[in-house]
């Protein structure tokens, strides 16, 4: 594995593999093209710390998060609990983050996933993003660089 910062194409590939393996129920996902620009209500993130510092975030609407949990747990949408949604979205972030981490400079560690409601965080620098459209729902997958690392780079340059 190379230790280069992932490009949009690599992020597309990773997202495609994850959706194809775990969420292909005859509704194949479309990668890198957003049918709509739905703002996410909910996000799950994993953080990378060490030789590279940043965060991988998956965000989507409440409806999309319920749908993805129902597909992963193989249960009706009406039976999905908030705990199920947190677990499912967190694991999506974990799998995407683990694959992205293998392309980043090492050594680094991956945190356990965190799930939170989204608000506007302008303190981070986006490295790359892709959008997955699945069952007409959109999921944004973004790799963000930590503000601390960005500040250190500015001082160094």
């Amino acid at each position, binding site marked *: 594995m190379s230790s280069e910062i992932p490009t949009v194409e690599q992020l597309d590939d990773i997202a495609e593999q994850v959706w194809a393996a775990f969420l292909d129920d005859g509704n194949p996902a479309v990668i890198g093209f957003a049918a709509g620009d739905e703002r996410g209500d909910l996000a799950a993130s994993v953080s990378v710390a060490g030789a590279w510092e940043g965060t991988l975030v998956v965000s989507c609407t409440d409806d999309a998060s319920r749908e993805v949990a129902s597909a992963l747990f193989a249960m009706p949408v009406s039976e999905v609990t908030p705990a199920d949604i947190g*677990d499912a979205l967190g694991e999506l972030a974990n799998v995407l983050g683990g*694959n992205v981490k293998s392309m980043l400079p090492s050594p680094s560690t991956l945190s356990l996933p965190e799930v939170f409601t989204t608000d506007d965080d302008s303190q981070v620098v986006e490295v790359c993003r892709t959008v997955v459209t699945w069952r007409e729902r959109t999921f944004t997958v973004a790799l963000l660089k930590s503000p601390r690392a960005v500040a250190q780079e500015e001082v160094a340059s």
Partner: protein
Amino acid sequence: MKILVADDSRVMRQIVIRTLRQAGFGDHDVVEAPDGAAAHTVVQEENPDLVLSDWNMPNMSGIELLHALRAGGKQVPFAFVTSECSQDMKNLAEAGGALCVITKPFTADAFKEHLAPFLESA
């Protein structure tokens, strides 16, 4: 045979169990653990024939679990199922005595390929 599936994500434990079934290993008994410490206890109490473990877990990571089992004399076959797929991780897993590292996202074919030598298919 008895298989222990250790992962802090409930949905991932379910996906692993579903994939075992799809790979033709559905006849084996499955026990679950939500973290490394719980998995360590389950191995002592249930003596599984195979452990499938995540890497990043609270209360003892997968690699710490493997080291603890081996240090305690437990030689149960142990495979990682993890999104961590760097060469460093694979080297650590191999050095610790793991059979293999199955990378998330995985398919039923990957389970067949890696686990068939240790599990009889249904």
